């Protein structure tokens, strides 16, 4: 072997910086440890119902976090997802209730119109976000802070905060609470979203350009990537996915609620993305790890409940574990850092 060439060989050969562990991080290992530990402590944990609940709740979070991750990878921030979840929920429910009056019995039409209206809300908010960020060049944080307030306001204006009923039973029983092959429908949808996003990230122009824009806008510009279109795309996807989560929640609960989402969903989705290795500086992040991180967060909450930890103290545990997990991950990656 010619060692001569290594004189000019790229530097990483020396460090283990991007080895397998470095690439996916510590999170999957932590997840496995958590699951194993919980299973050993409490058999309830691996009861089928508990697993289904975990999967379903993780699905909602994962769907929202997928969109959030795309926005962050492109160098943005979407604070409005929680408000969109709520707006989509009430709009879907209202539309279905109205359609149910107009076309009694025609369930397919009623459900289709409700879902379309809900997703339409997401689309609209996403377009507004994308337009303000891409065209008016206002920072994503501020734009979505504004649309968060406005969207939540509209949701409450429509409903006065009162739950909206009147959706067809078929939507709730046949979709929201239904199970296919033993798994809730939400899980399938979340899997589909994750797989499609994975595919998009690895194999499509859109995914490639999202990385490029977040990684170095100037480089993307001079390489002829149309920036605005793709930035708008990420915000639209994020809002539409948030709307989808809102519709799923609505179907599960059986009523449209302006209390869905809120700050909690927003913070959790960003936390899931960031803990899942998405860099807030943009350009880095894989959606499958984000999904694992959503699962991790959901199981953590479930575990604290199963362990009978005083609910007032739960946030303390949650906070400490979250920080510790990310700190460990950070330290394990730090080998190749300079300065």
């Amino acid at each position, binding site marked *: 072997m010619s060692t001569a060439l290594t*004189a000019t060989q*790229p530097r990483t050969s020396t460090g283990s910086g991007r080895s397998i562990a470095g690439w996916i991080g510590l999170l999957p290992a932590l997840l496995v440890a958590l699951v194993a530990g919980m299973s050993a402590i409490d058999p309830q944990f691996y009861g089928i119902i508990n697993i289904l609940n975990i999967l379903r709740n993780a699905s909602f979070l994962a769907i929202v976090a997928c969109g959030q991750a795309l926005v962050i990878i492109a160098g943005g921030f979407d604070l409005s997802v929680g408000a969109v979840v709520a707006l989509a929920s009430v709009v879907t429910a209202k539309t279905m209730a109205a359609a149910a009056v107009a076309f009694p019995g025609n369930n397919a039409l009623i459900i289709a119109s409700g879902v379309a209206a809900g997703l339409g809300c997401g689309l609209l908010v996403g377009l507004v976000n994308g337009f303000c960020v891409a065209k008016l060049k206002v920072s994503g944080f501020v734009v979505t802070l504004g649309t968060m307030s406005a969207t939540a306001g509209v949701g409450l204006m429509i409903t006065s905060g009162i739950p909206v009923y009147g959706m067809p039973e078929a939507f709730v029983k046949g979709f929201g609470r239904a199970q296919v092959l033993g798994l809730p429908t939400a899980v399938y949808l979340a899997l589909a979203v994750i797989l499609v996003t994975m595919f998009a990230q690895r194999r499509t122009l859109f995914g490639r350009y999202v990385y490029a824009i977040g990684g170095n806008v100037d*480089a993307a*510009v*001079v390489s002829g990537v149309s920036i605005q279109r793709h930035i708008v795309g990420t915000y639209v996807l994020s809002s539409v996915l948030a709307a989808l989560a809102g519709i799923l929640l609505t179907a599960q609960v059986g009523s449209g609620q302006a209390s869905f989402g809120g700050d909690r969903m927003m913070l959790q989705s960003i936390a899931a993305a960031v803990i899942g290795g998405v860099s807030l500086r943009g*350009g880095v992040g894989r959606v499958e790890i984000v999904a694992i991180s959503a699962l991790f967060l959901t199981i953590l909450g479930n575990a604290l409940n199963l362990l009978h930890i005083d609910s007032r103290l739960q946030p303390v545990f949650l906070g400490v574990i979250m920080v510790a997990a990310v700190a460990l991950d950070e330290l394990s990656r730090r080998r190749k850092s300079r300065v």
Partner: protein
Amino acid sequence: MDVDIDLKQTGPLLALRGISKRFTGVRALDRVDLDVRAGELHVLFGENGAGKSTLINVVSGTFPPDEGTFHFGGEEIRHLTPQRARAIGISPVFQEFSLVPSLTVEENLFLGREVSSSGVLRAREMRKRARALIDELGFDLDPSQRVDDLSRAHQQMTEIAKALLGRVRLLILDEPTASLTERETGRLFELIARLKSQNVGLIYVSHRMREIRALADRVTVLRDGRHIRTLNAATSTDGELVELMTGRKIDLLFPTIAHKPDKVMVDVENLTLTDGSVRDVNFYAQAGEITGIAGLVGCGKSELIRAIYGLEPMASGVVRIDGLRYEFPTPRRSLKHGIAYFPANRIAEGLALSRPIRENASMTGLDLPAFARFGVLRQAAERITIAGIMEQLQLRPPNIERAAGALSGGNRQKVMLGRALTRELTVFLFDEPSVGIDVGAKLEVYEFMKRLVEAGAAVIVVSSELPEVLALSNRLYVMHHGRIAAELKGAEKTEQNVLASFFRDHLAAEVA
């Protein structure tokens, strides 16, 4: 203006007439004309901030010009965009890389020109084409590596490969050798010759006279955004070019430095770094002399001095400063020990661009009573001190309240150098001190070093530009594979010997 008349039947490949470009407050280009013929290498020559990069950006469609006409291949082009430019065969290699650090080499090569069918990437085909291109160019690049894992030289290669993907009629190279060493530079020159023979036009920007000599067919000199003259390279002298560029006469490129080696200031014993980039290095530097370190890209020369300053973690070994052992270095402690470091990458590691020059220059001295008492800044004293230093270094424009980002490359370097004058220092570590700065500014930097050694400081210069280290240093170390391959003094200090110690090792390795 004396643009010499094109004698060929066919018109020039690229013809710019009366191009102007104004940025807020500056007129970067003022009615510039430029012709580039097919098969010609046309050098753009000018001081930092003369408008070279701006002109290149106009040609490659990044900035629309405010006025002027643009003909390419005989056709008038309006509303040029980066995509369109690439489509018609204009390929730029930018000074500030247009690479996305988090993507791989291959992904960067195809950025904006991916092979895809209905939005889905065709990875295998791109991989094949990337391999083929890299092999053809003879670069040691792994297409699947992430760009932020690459050395700057490899990034430069990626940038060049990116420009050569697809059909190229006009290749633009903006200081392509600034971070390449001899070997890669040689490869690049071969490539340029090949392209010229294929009738590709080239625009080439460099501050290195040797390259201009070696490559140029014609040279266009720019000054303050204006076209000064276009000359035939064969019939003009260096002195003439430099004079046209600066408006004054500069005779010597390197000052004569009187070295008076005194006590050993830096003594490194068996130094090994945790990442293995430097292994078992022994070397020393004396007060009153310039110690040079040369070596191929990635040989660990930068890491060596960065480790002394405290930017790279050490695994083992001993560093002595002025005879005393110096353990666990950090930048702050190094400064207190009288050691200063001037990073190669002034944008990433040197300057806070949006802050005023004054703040950038005083940054390293804030712990001194001259600048602050009990944590409270002495702003008047600061202003006077920094203004004095900057006057001494001939900062242009001399306003120290301007943002550092508004300065040209050479003047940014002066701000960095100014830091050295804010406090008592005895050891100066320079990493690629002349990267990207023009001939005039280089001379000023060299003069600065000369003053330092003559005042009794120990100066260590790490450089990829061989003539520079050869001319400046009193003793020269050559590094290879993270180890010291040779120490050259006096008459041994020749280009021949340096190259020999690069390649001796190569040959040895190949035999083994």
